[in-house]
């Protein structure tokens, strides 16, 4: 039982480290915008220099309002 006197503070310390990371994340502005990264994920390919679009179908399927 007396081991708890040691173990609990240690685990608390580990938890505090995580809290510190959270604080750092908030302060560096990572929570300012939580939806754009989701969009960015969809377009993760690098642009190749001089590349032409790979789409060959000249008629876009997406309907657009005139």
């Amino acid at each position, binding site marked *: *039982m007396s081991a708890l006197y040691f173990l609990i503070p240690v685990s608390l310390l580990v938890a505090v480290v995580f809290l510190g990371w959270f604080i750092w994340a908030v302060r560096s502005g990572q929570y300012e*915008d939580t*939806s754009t990264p989701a969009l960015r994920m969809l377009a993760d390919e690098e642009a190749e220099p001089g590349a*032409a679009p790979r789409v060959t*179908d000249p008629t876009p399927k997406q309907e657009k*309002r005139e």
Partner: protein
Amino acid sequence: MCRPVKAARSEAESPAAIPPRTAPAPRERCFHCATPCPPDAPEQDGRRFCCRGCLAVYQVLTNNGLGHFYDLGQGAGVRVKEEPASGGRWDYLDDPGVRDRLLDFREGNLARVTLHVPAMHCVACVWLLENLFRLREGIGSSEVNFPRREVSILFDLAKVPLSGVVALLDSLGYPPVLRLDAVEGRRARPSFKRLYLQLGVAGFAFGNTMLFSFPAYLGLEPTAAAGLSRFFGWLSMALAVPVVLFSAADYWKAAWQAVRRRVLTIDFPIALGLAALFGRSAWEVMAGAGPGYFDSLTGLVFFLLCGRLFQQKSYERLSFDRDYRAFFPMAVTRRRGDGEETVPVSRVKVGDRLIIRHRELLPADARLVRGRGLLDYSFVTGESAPVEKRAGDLLYAGGRQMGTAVEVEVLRPVAQSYLASLWSREEVARPRSGGWAGITDRVSRWFTVTVVGVALAAAAWWAGRGQWGVGLWAFTAVLIVACPCALALAAPFAHGAAQRRLGLAGVFLRSADVVEALARVDMVVFDKTGTLTAPGQEETVWEGDELTVAERRAVAALAGQSAHPLARAMVRAVGRIERRIEVAAFHEEPGFGLSGEVDGHRWCLGSAAWLRRNGVPAPVGGVADQAEVWCAVNGRLLGRWRFRGRLRPESAPVLRAWRQAGMRLALLSGDQARERDRFAPLFGPDAEMLFEQTPAAKLEQVRRWREEGRVVMMVGDGLNDAGALRASDVGVAVTAGPGEFSPASDVILEGGRLDRLPAAWRLARSTTRLVRASIGVSLVYNAVGISLAAQGLLAPWICAVLMPLSSVSVIALAVGGVRWAAARLGLPTAHAISPETSTLEAVAV
């Protein structure tokens, strides 16, 4: 020779409608922007484009290795509508006074600017805007904030000036919206950093202290490991200290201010309870008398902060707080000597000569010096017909010049124009929140008094018996158990949940407490033009013989020369101009009509009086309720068009729904009383319908109704009735999309979904009932708890469990109840994007 006009028929015989355009053969769509291509469209690499603008952007992208854009979204490009402006349009941005206000920061030559680009709408746009560095030397990284439609660009001032960055965005089809309020320093961008930090600390402490309190929850006797129990107590206290000092800081401040101003808001009992909790728990731990209530303390703070975050996180895309400065352009052309210069509006002085071109907005009250003024004041008065002005006439700010450029002399500074004075009238300038006390504050007032009274009475009673210890315990127990958490949490969570559900339905509220105001509404006032009628659409009826294709083309060519709204309506009615048709001897007489020669034929379009003036026998006396345009060729009358604003499809059912709900209705319109008979049956006999109302008159009328004791909800398009919107209890602005302009209003209706309003009102009422129920339930909790505590009967574990339990149950009841009510009303559970809002380009007038 006079051709009999068939328009003399009665309404019973339906007039011949203009034959519908035969549907064109399916045309190819532009590879860049997906609008259909005209027959002579440009072509490259085997791909078709709708115009040179799109082709140009395509070339830029492919030549710089950004062809991946088209893989991300076919046809995702934005159509570049206007001719690229002549060089110099953005030069004023390099003026250090202007530039430095726009930049976020600047260090040597490194600068960063954040620009609002409403035209971005998809992944491809985000990708392209974050790859700008490939297109221009000197541009570094750029980052997009999609919900706010903003892009932050890092660039080197030595290599590319700010005007160059903006010009690049413009050329790609993403023109930044530069408005006066950005430069004049009102950049209210709410940052939740502090709230997130407070929440994080509180949550961390809450979780850990709950773990430490497990033995207490399970009722384990501390004698088994007394040392550990005290150890946990100290640890809990250590964790609770930062919560009290940092996370709860705002409550201490608010309670202190409440005391100083002698107004008891909800923050006071919260602060009192927190103090009692901490004090009592600290005493227990230090005296070794028990584990304390730190879990309840940290839990309460955590839930309170959650409620606050929920409440404050309004939609970031929307900006509810815009005044007239948000509509004005940033710069205007000023005459200097023989030449012109582009200057920021803030630099315009009295006596300056300004040049206002076609479709530009006049930023200050001025006198017309040269040119023919044809000013569209729909923004200010709501009237769609432009007003003609001659040299020497006074022009008010806010008018948009339609037609050739004019030169004006500024009479009053920008901020002192008539328009600005309208916005700064007392009703308009009053801050929106705080008009009346919400239910939470009302209840909390007597709640605090009661609880403190009971606590003191209990302490005094025990002290009178000589049992000071029990008395002290009873005092703190009463304060602890009398949890204001339900009071503090029910309203924010219920209103926040309602606000979110309404947002999903396209009804955006400025803040959660608008729900309360919405529930009390007993009168709904509508604007007419743009609100009940759909802007830019009209019903067109042609009376006369059918026009041949050649005749229709001639009419379209002639009408296309004019900027008058009726002329534009005619072009819409007759069909697009497909080929360039020469119009000779064009003449426009404002207020009367047009004339010109096409293919050797002399055409005449306009009012009956105009036609008569040109030698065409047109009948005298027209139908009073509709705008009409007569048409004649070579002196021969062909017929007339009649235009009528088209009602939105939702208008009639919505008005019926309101009448069935017993709501009092009214109509305020800036137009003439032409259409009274059309709207009377929709509004019913009890409604007041007032026409020819100036914006000031609308404001006065709303104020008068409020003084009668009514709670007024005003529904308008938010432009010329902005004052009235602000003066009402709940102002609803009807816009095409959430990225649109809207001045200060409480609610924004997306896509003109008027039909959602009755459901929103009902949800607000249900929410208010729910909040009252939650408060009632919590009062029961409190009554039971207080009576036990006052008698000193409360066992510690009961206190420990009751508080988080009551908090959670109140939240669950509030949120769950709102969800259920919303489902019952048929409100959507996910955001449905209506076709009108699928692109967020600003809608041109």
